[in-house]
């Protein structure tokens, strides 16, 4: 049987760390899915996504979100990362789909679902506008210089359209 949804790599954090990077991503899939399940040590932060080590202002993103009291929408333009959900000290699940990541002819788009049942739920659409290149590295971190907490897991899956 052809495997069309395959784990590429998993990070299960035994110590708190500031970021997780998946590098040398094979170009043999159609799409990628990154699943974060975890927490941070204190407060609330955005989770941020970058590709191929690009820290320039090549990213933008629109989201709509609910707090339990208010539903709203906002966006970022000319940013140096894509916001891919909030992270709290309580269990947070952020699921990021990265479409058509391996081509060198189009900008790359992402869809995000972020979940924290006590605080926040959101959906995001993101764009990376660097001169088109295949995504070979995916980097995520909490904003504000805080760490992913011990016990957090981040898994990158590859999906084949066959």
């Amino acid at each position, binding site marked *: *049987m052809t495997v069309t949804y395959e*784990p590429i790599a998993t990070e299960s954090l035994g110590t708190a760390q500031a970021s997780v990077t998946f590098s040398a991503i094979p170009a043999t899939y159609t799409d990628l899915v990154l699943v974060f*399940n975890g927490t941070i040590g204190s407060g609330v932060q955005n989770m941020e996504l970058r590709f191929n080590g690009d820290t320039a202002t090549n990213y933008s993103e629109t989201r709509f979100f609910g707090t339990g009291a208010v*539903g709203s929408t906002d966006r970022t333009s000319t940013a140096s990362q894509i916001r891919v959900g909030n992270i709290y000290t309580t269990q947070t*699940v952020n699921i990021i789909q990265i479409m058509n990541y391996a081509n060198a002819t189009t900008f790359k788009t992402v869809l995000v679902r972020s*979940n924290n049942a006590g605080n926040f*739920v959101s*959906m995001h659409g993101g764009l990376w506008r660097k001169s088109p290149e295949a995504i070979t590295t995916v980097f995520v971190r909490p904003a504000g210089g805080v760490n992913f907490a011990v016990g957090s*897991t981040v898994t990158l899956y590859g999906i084949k359209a066959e």
Partner: protein
Amino acid sequence: MAVTYKLIETVTVGSGGAASITFSSIPQTFTDLLVVISGRSTRSSPANNDDIAVRPNGSTTNATSRYLFGTGSTAGSGADTKIYAGYMSAAGATASVFGNSSIYIPNYAGSTNKSFSSDGVSENNATAVGMAIQAGLWSLTDAITSLVLVSNTASNFVEHSSASLYGIKNS
């Protein structure tokens, strides 16, 4: 090579409908679970759609949620002490229309509290549709061995409603 995205079970509601859809004896050999639902409810008032609630291990306690919804004319956000699993169409929707929903449950067999990410829509080519994204948390560390899907209004799933449970492995 191991199959890492595997159908565990599909339940299709038969003649006469059903008050719930249950997946029991869920194998503990995967990392995450995904449930995909095609559903329609007997709810008659309001009759356009119905919320689906999910009960891990049949539990109706220790649950919280946040959700964001749109109806085509209004949008809003709320919180509850249930875990929602999207929308299904209801008795007043166009005949043969079924809502679509999915639930992602990471680390369902682990020893941490269990999180749920759900999306749902009950499109009807008319006003008063429903769509929502929902975050859920079951604040117990028990492994999930069963999932029970119910109508939030104690209505029934109609015949031909279906739900498929998939297991996903991260290695």
